[in-house]
């Protein structure tokens, strides 16, 4: 049984038919990626999974049970956490507070403290500046903070929305190696990326999205050599 399964999900944003029947599934332990042009509906898909947008049609199954009708906080409690596009850390909160916000749904103080140390281990930069406001970090560090914040909720499935957006190439590499490491810890990852090349190299399986629909899906290495993908998204 897939960990998460989207069945024919439709979403209308006002008059705009943003998702036109998205089918997607992901199994535990995998990295899957969703690539596509700007405005194809990738972020909308993730927002629909996180229940920020309520799909008008279709179903989202998690462990075989529907997530529709649940509030965003219930989704997080169920173990689905998103690192949103543009990082969206809380700029006025300190780094530590940002991370504690990630653990908002959890109650056991000792476990939270342990996880906090784990995140600081993973991102030593953050540990050095835990009393500093999140807004003072650079783009790459904010991305680390956002990922760390999501990890604090102990997710089973991590949704990553454009983690490399606007980062210097070196930082992009670093972020991708971190993602790989997180996946190594047994966390399932759904990665949305514009940097199709990097994403497909990392992922096991890929989906190509265009104007609200999945137009192509295949194991990642096949997509990497697919002519259409090459032409449209790899710029070759």
């Amino acid at each position, binding site marked *: 049984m897939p960990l998460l399964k989207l069945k024919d999900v439709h979403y209308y944003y006002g*008059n705009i038919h943003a998702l036109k029947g998205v089918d997607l599934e992901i199994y535990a332990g995998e990295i899957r990626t969703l690539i596509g042009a700007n*405005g194809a509906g990738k972020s909308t898909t993730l927002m629909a999974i996180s229940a920020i947008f309520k799909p008008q049609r279709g179903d989202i199954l998690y462990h075989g049970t529907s997530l529709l009708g649940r509030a965003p906080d219930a989704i997080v409690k169920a173990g689905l956490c998103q690192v949103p596009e543009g990082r969206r850390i809380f700029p006025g909160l300190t780094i530590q507070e940002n991370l504690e916000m990630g653990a908002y749904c959890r109650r056991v103080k000792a476990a939270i403290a342990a996880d906090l140390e784990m995140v600081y281990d993973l991102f030593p930069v953050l540990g050095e500046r835990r009393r500093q406001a999140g807004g003072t970090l650079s783009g790459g560090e904010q991305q680390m903070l956002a990922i760390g914040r999501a990890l604090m909720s102990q997710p089973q499935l991590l949704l990553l929305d454009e983690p490399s957006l*606007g980062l*210097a190439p070196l930082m992009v590499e670093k972020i991708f190696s971190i993602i790989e490491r997180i996946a190594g810890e047994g966390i399932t990852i759904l990665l949305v990326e514009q940097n199709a090349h*990097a994403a497909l190299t990392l992922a096991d399986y890929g989906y190509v999205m*265009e104007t609200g629909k999945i137009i192509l899906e295949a194991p990642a290495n096949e997509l990497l050599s697919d002519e259409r993908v090459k032409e449209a998204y790899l710029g070759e």
Partner: protein
Amino acid sequence: MDKRKTGEILLQAHKLVKKFGGLTAVKEVSLEVRAGEIIGLIGPNGAGKTTFFNCLNAIAVPTSGEITFAGHSLVSQVSGASSRLIFRSALLFALLSLFWLPLVLGVVWPETFFRLEAVLSLSSLALFRIYLLRPLTRFRPWSRLLLIIFVLVDGICAVSWLWRSAEFAEVSFFGLFPFYPMLVPGALLLLIAAPILLLLFNLSQVKEAFGQHLRADAITVFGMGRTFQNIRLFSSLSVLDNVKLGRHCRTRANFFGIVFGLPQARKEELDSAEKATECLNFVGLGQQLESLASSLPYGAQRRLEIARALATEPKLLLLDEPAAGMNPTESAELITLVRRISAAGIAILIIEHDMKVMMNLADRIYVLDHGELIASGTPAEIRSNAKVIEAYLGA
């Protein structure tokens, strides 16, 4: 391709800098566009491309740098002459502050003088000072220090003056001026509060508020049209009205002309409808004049935005990611459209992520990364530029 470079320089940006608080979004970017060219601007997300556009048409006020467009300077500088003026007004400030001092010492003026002083110093003086603060705050730290001194003196004087007004309550020095209840406390507060607020909090905002920069609408009149990354249509107006608004800056009818239906106003109205329809036909939306702008599909909205910009009769069109979110067919159509616009003699500066579109269209490309210009040249040069490959294109 080189044949186009013969055109005169239309837009020139020189060492343009834009800072947001501590963050420098655009660092000393220089760029020029000649008449008839198609210029591309590329770079990773967050590289400052849109901010650069915003600076060009004065949606954002650049921190420093110069822009000239079609013979107009769009950002004015503090010149030597105006700094002398500033110095003089600073001296004037000092004198005016001295004027307050006798009050602190408790000198009793003749009543007539007292009246005059009350009215003059409190109302006009306050306004006058605020007016003068305007150039001052654009200036150097030493003037700030001077101002802080003025402010302190002002504050002390105003308080003691208030005190005296209670002391000499039987002196009806306000009698001259019928509106004193509004004016006096208002003026007092202005006098005390305005300089403090102007000085102690965020000067850059004051600068933006009072800055000498041209506004976007004036720049549109000079002939710079633009579209936006996240489409900004007047969504509850009809398609035709949207484009008619583009004609706004080319029409003159005023309030009375409109109310009394003067011939000129009527003629203009007909003309703008005609021109707007023309522009809509040009982008292929001629059939949907009366639909609501927000009801159009995504690609059509992008084209409508272009039609609206075209209606302003631009010499230079700024396109901010016009192909974003379009499928390959739509972006191919867009390329044709941009070429047709260019063929009509309009220079184009275009931001685009789709390298294919860019390579296809642009005569020259500028590459921004972290706000800095890292490369410029023909598409072929850019394609093989090591820096660009590292920062943007990837291996």
